[in-house]
């Protein structure tokens, strides 16, 4: 059993999704039970994976027992284990929230949700570049359908942009994978790293073109500066539990950048090492500025949270741009924090919108909230955390990142990061005072179901928890960054039979 543990985060949602497809309509309770149970099981599996990876050993699972570099492998190291655990935590909050009624607004919600999880987990675990493409497609296809869940003009129109853009991105992904395969003759990431070390110089141009095109693809997923225009509209239009799950989607782009450029184009790649760094650094700062402007300009709570996701993308990329182990560790801590909190805020926005009736999540005068006290308390905690105010987790993440910046980088990062935090504080306090205090008329909204409260509390509750557990967590992320800084360990773990390979 324990040898097959690595493949479970992919197989478990797949099987659950197939069971959930057996009946399109009806048997709501059974479907919810299967959906939540599968997500809970995924959480347990991912905890076991983290426990296994925490020791620092890199283990892999060769599908069909085809040994690397010839077969497809799933690789478990500290980073992938952490990301799978984060996905499971986020998914549990979202799926319980959806059980309050959002899942019945269309068909097949739970099945698609499980397949989305399968794609996400696969993308985090795979050690093969083409396999990464396949899992990207799995998660994208599920996300297209989930984005349209429930229908409506806004969703369809933003869905068209999202789908077309991602299809074009997929074509670009294939071209760059093809280029890299043509130049190196392998698709296994670890093997590619080894082969890049003694690459003939006439092929360097091909590899650089492929690598930078990959950056465009991952940048599209992560929504960095010139490629983010699809995000705010799509996230604001998506159903709440889906938007919450999408909080991890931009982080898949970040993960892919981190994985590909630390492993394949790490220190061993000679002249090709760190070729993304210059681009990522400046684009991250641009993303921060654009996102902070968007945060100030947003006239709708959901749009505001979508721009906060973008702020977090800019912050995370800045960590990659700095590139030292300290910065990577800081960015991983910030990544956990921002994924859970922005996911929670999307759920909270839905609850606020429901209780405000016609005004919805638009930042205009509306009727008072029936359970305003509790909602405001949740919003307050979430806002403090996401804006990066002490004492909650956002402040720790930002402080770690600012401490990791060196020399000239500080002059750029510190003001921009702090000003984006200020923009978030201004926008969130304006939004909060409008939503909770500027109201007229009678409160007549429905009481909110307990499942929704659980979903939000599960995710927002991460803020104080992440603060309390910052010590052990930072130890883990430090170790992860250390592991990423030494890609040689992974290539040795995967390709230990180098001697007798042809």
């Amino acid at each position, binding site marked *: 059993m324990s040898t097959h543990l690595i493949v479970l985060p992919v197989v478990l949602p797949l099987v659950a999704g197939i069971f959930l497809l057996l009946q399109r309509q009806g048997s709501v309770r059974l479907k919810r039970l299967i959906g939540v149970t599968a997500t809970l099981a995924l959480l347990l599996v991912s905890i076991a994976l983290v426990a296994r990876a925490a020791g620092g050993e890199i283990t892999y699972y060769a599908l069909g027992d085809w040994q690397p570099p010839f077969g497809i492998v799933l690789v478990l190291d500290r980073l992938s284990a952490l990301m799978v655990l984060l996905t499971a935590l986020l998914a549990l909050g979202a799926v319980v929230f959806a059980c309050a009624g959002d899942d019945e607004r269309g068909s097949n919600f739970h099945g698609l949700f499980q397949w989305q999880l399968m794609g996400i987990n696969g993308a985090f675990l795979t050690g093969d570049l*083409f396999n990464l493409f*396949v899992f990207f*497609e799995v998660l994208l*296809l599920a996300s*297209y359908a989930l984005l*349209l869940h429930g229908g*409506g*003009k806004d969703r*369809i*129109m933003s*869905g*068209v*942009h999202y*789908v*077309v853009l991602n*299809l*074009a991105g*997929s*074509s670009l992904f*294939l*071209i760059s*994978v*093809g*280029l890299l*395969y*043509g130049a190196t003759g392998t*698709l296994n990431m670890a093997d590619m790293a080894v082969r890049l070390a003694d690459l003939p110089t006439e092929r360097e141009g091909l590899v650089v073109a492929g690598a930078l095109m990959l950056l465009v693809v991952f940048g599209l997923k992560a929504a960095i500066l010139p490629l983010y225009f699809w995000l705010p509209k799509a996230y604001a239009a998506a159903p709440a539990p889906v938007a919450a799950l999408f909080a991890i989607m931009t982080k898949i782009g970040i993960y892919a950048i981190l994985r590909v450029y630390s492993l394949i184009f790490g220190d061993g790649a000679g002249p090709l090492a760190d070729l993304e760094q210059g681009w990522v650094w400046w684009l991250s700062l641009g993303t921060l500025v654009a996102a902070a402007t968007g945060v100030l300009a947003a006239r709708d709570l959901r749009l505001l949270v979508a721009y906060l996701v973008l702020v977090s993308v800019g912050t995370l990329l800045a960590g990659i741009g700095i590139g030292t182990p300290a910065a990577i560790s800081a960015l991983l801590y910030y990544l956990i924090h921002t994924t859970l909190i922005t996911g929670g805020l999307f759920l909270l926005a839905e609850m606020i919108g429901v209780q405000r009736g016609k005004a919805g999540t638009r930042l205009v005068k509306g009727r008072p909230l029936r359970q305003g006290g509790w909602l405001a308390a949740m919003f307050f905690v979430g806002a403090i955390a996401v804006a990066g105010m002490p004492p909650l987790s956002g402040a720790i993440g930002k402080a770690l990142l600012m401490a990791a910046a060196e020399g000239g980088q500080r002059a750029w990062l510190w003001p921009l990061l702090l000003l984006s935090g200020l923009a978030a504080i201004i926008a969130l306090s304006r939004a909060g005072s409008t939503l909770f205090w500027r109201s007229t008329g009678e409160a007549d909204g429905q009481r909110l179901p307990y499942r929704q409260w659980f979903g939000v509390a599960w995710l927002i509750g991460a803020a104080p928890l992440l603060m309390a557990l910052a010590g052990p967590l930072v130890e883990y992320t430090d170790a992860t960054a250390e592991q990423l800084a030494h890609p040689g360990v992974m290539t040795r773990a995967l390709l230990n039979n180098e001697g007798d390979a042809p």
Partner: protein
Amino acid sequence: MESLYAITTGVLTACGLYLILRSRTFPVVVGLTLLSYAVNLFLFSMGGLTTDGAALVNGVKDYADPLPQALVLTAIVIGFAMTAFVVILAMRARSEAGNDHVDGRKHEAGEGRR
């Protein structure tokens, strides 16, 4: 053969890109299809173009690289599913928005009513 192959791929890509940038959903869908054809051809050529190569490796020196063929097969299947999805989505958008503009606008400035 190489230059003909390269020109074909390039022309397909250019046509696909041009069509993707159009403002109606139908040309965009056709553009995506063309682009995926171009990508499939491109992937196929990445193992190196060979003629009369052995399909199975059995000690012979001159063989066709099987991996790009497997990749193209996967890419074709995925591309096909995606095209089907985007066609349905475009039709839904057409019926929801009442027109086939990608932004759901009634008609472009400077463009007459059709």
